[in-house]
């Protein structure tokens, strides 16, 4: 299988100009997105790595797209900061570029929002080999077309990301996790909806079907006990406080609950949609961020069921057709034609 491994933006430009069909790849943690189709050359971006700029006081960093999330997080951690959208699969080697291209956020997205809330700027090589910048390196910026947001979930359709800038935040001084069993799905959904609407500043609010909620709090150690107590009162249950909460949540964000499932999918959800989703033949699964985001393990029948129900989803692993439904031709098709007129890149 043909593969090129650029180590500079210039080499990415050369590779794009040289090959008629390309499939960008980071660490390969979402193989449904990075496995080459017939006639495609793999553009392995793992050699384009490293932190280019990090100003802790600005809450901003810039890094090459092939940089592993973990590497960035270690640098951030040294200054008490983190990426609040909690990029998934970090423990398995996921890169910044792959995370953006797939458009993935993890369990802690509940508190401050998802990937799209934290990406500030991009430099990418479009389908004609031109190096293009969008956005900037400051937390507030409204100049020019926001190409960085176009990259979120793009699967590489408009260009090969070479450099990304993100906003970061201070990491909570302490965290606590409460696990509560609610008896049945209806009870769990009612509790979930109630918590979603209250100003509790939860770091994570997950539903593990059929009826368990896992709730993570972060803040000053002195305030956490009081907030935990209030949470228990709101729920009318004691629940169980997890001691190893850091290790537990690292497992969740690495999607270890999907281990053993042949196909891994991300499904945009809402609490109202959960009962219908629960009626489908899905495997192990977990609803993150108050029910807005489902990661599920399925077999081919489950995937057919999702498609049959017309529910949008993204396959991370285990199937060739990654995206359902395809993007709207009227808008997407034209932007695609502008940036990748020869169709060198994925999605069309």
């Amino acid at each position, binding site marked *: 299988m043909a593969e090129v491994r650029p180590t500079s933006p210039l080499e990415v430009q050369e590779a794009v100009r040289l090959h008629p069909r390309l499939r960008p790849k980071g660490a390969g943690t979402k193989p449904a997105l990075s496995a080459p189709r017939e006639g495609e050359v793999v553009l392995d971006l793992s050699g384009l790595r490293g932190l280019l700029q990090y100003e802790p*006081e600005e*809450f901003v960093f810039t890094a090459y797209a092939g940089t592993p999330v973990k590497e960035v997080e270690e640098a951030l951690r040294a200054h*008490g900061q983190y990426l609040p959208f909690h990029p998934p699969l970090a423990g398995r080697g996921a890169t910044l570029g792959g995370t953006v291209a797939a*458009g993935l956020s993890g369990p802690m*997205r509940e508190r401050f*929002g*998802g990937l*799209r*809330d934290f990406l500030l700027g991009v430099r990418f090589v*479009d389908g*004609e080999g*031109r190096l293009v*910048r969008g956005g*900037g390196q*400051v*937390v*507030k*910026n*409204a*100049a*020019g*077309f*926001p190409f960085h*947001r*176009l990259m*979120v979930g*793009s699967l590489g359709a*408009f260009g090969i990301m070479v450099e990304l800038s993100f906003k970061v935040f*201070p990491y909570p*001084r302490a965290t606590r996790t409460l696990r509560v069993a609610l008896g049945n799905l209806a009870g769990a959904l009612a509790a979930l909806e109630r918590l*979603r*609407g*209250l*100003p509790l*500043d939860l770091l994570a609010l997950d539903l593990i079907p059929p009826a368990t909620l896992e709730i993570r709090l972060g*803040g*000053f150690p002195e*305030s956490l006990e009081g*907030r935990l107590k*209030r949470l228990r009162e709101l729920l009318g249950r004691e629940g169980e406080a997890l001691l190893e909460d850091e290790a537990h949540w690292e497992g969740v964000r690495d999607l270890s609950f999907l281990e053993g499932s042949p196909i891994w999918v*991300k499904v*945009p959800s*809402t609490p*109202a949609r959960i009962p219908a989703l629960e009626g489908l033949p899905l495997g192990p699964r977990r609803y993150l*961020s108050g029910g*807005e*985001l489902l990661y599920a393990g399925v077999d081919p029948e489950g995937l057919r069921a999702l498609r049959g129900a017309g529910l*949008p989803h*993204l396959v991370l692993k285990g199937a060739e057709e990654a*995206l359902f439904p395809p*993007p*709207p031709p*009227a*808008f997407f098709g*034209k*932007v695609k*034609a*502008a*940036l990748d007129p020869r169709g060198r890149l994925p*999605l069309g």
Partner: protein
Amino acid sequence: MGFLEELKALFPPGRVLTREAALAPYESDALTAYRRRPLAVVLPERKKEVVEAVRLCHRHGVPFVARGSGTSLSGGSLPVEGGIVLALNRMNRILRLDPRAKIAVVEPGVVNLEVSRQAAPYGLYYAPDPSSQPISTLGGNVAFNSGGAHCLKYGMTAGHVLGLEVVTPTGEVVRLGGESLEGVGPDLAGFFVGTEGLLGVALEITLRLLPRPEAYHTLLAAYGSLEAAGNAVSQVIRSGLLPGAMEIMDRLAIEAAEAAVGAGYPQAEVLLIVELEGPKEEVEEEAKLLAQVIEESGALEVRIAQSEAERQAIWKGRKAAFSAVGRLSPDYIVQDGVVPRSRLGEALKEIGRLSQEYGLRVANVFHAGDGNLHPLVLYDGKKPGELERAEELAGEILRLCVRLGGSLTGEHGIGVEKKAYMPEMFAPEDLLAMERVKEALDPRGLANRGKVLPEGVVDPRLEGAHG
């Protein structure tokens, strides 16, 4: 039938304005130095009417500009000569407010603050709060990716728009995004936000709502210099706190605010407002740390709002500052640039120097948490040459922002006002990519023609190289 006759046939009588007196109010937005007479102004009340008007424009090659309340400070909704204005204020219905889903689906003419008002009984609100929020519309907020005082913590409009229904410049109606906080596939709704009406007109907007914070802690600190206040901001950040807002006003801005609303601010060179928000137990702990940081920062006087009324009084002065400056000077330009937070001191010093050099007063009000400067350049339009000098000074400030690693605009948009400065921030290839996207979606160049993209970016050599 000619274009105007066809246009009139699309609307009931009275909703296509063509008489001079009726057109006059639409000749400019809040950047009144620029004026253009449109061919006509139409007042749609339904999506279908907007779509039909856009299709008609496409067929006849007539340019169009969509506008809401016209609060743009960058000429973003300036009409195009010979084109039409789609005035969307009558499309002001909140179509759905679903507290359980925490979303609101609105028409583009809905005023920003109205969403929070309607959501308040459910304990929810719409977070982006530009200073114009009592009048500016969400369609405009979407076009400009508007910000406000709370962007550091909550981000700008783009993060709060989940879905859009849009009519493209060729008249196609598309849905971008959805109703969930999460999506799959390219974030096209996110991309549309901030394109200043160049890629189409938003017909319907789905917003995320947030639970209103439970507790606030609002602190006002006085300093002897901008540098000292700027350092205090850095110290707050270094302490690991994440305030909802941090705002700075200089002496001129304080005087103006006092004269306008009598906020009761202390007499000082500089005022810093810091507001913490969140669950009450958390805010209590944060407030202790903040008190310590502010004490160490050398504040000359510190006040803490003891009630909601006192909190509102602190904010009233800050929010009135822009319009209040009108009391100090017959005219002023509101500039809007961003610098990295750590370079605020440097930027302000240079602005002070430029103010001296140009012989024009500059008042400073800014979102210190984001490094978003709002220098107000005071001038007298009746004095010959003064407007030009003020514009030059404002331009120098923008160049300074880019030089320091910031941005041409934090929230006001590029519009017509700043498009000449785009090449300072973006390379020709960046601008070409924007041009190409614009051309692909709007081959006749009708949607908000003449905004954002500077003239003459297309370098023929580059064009040739890529065939």
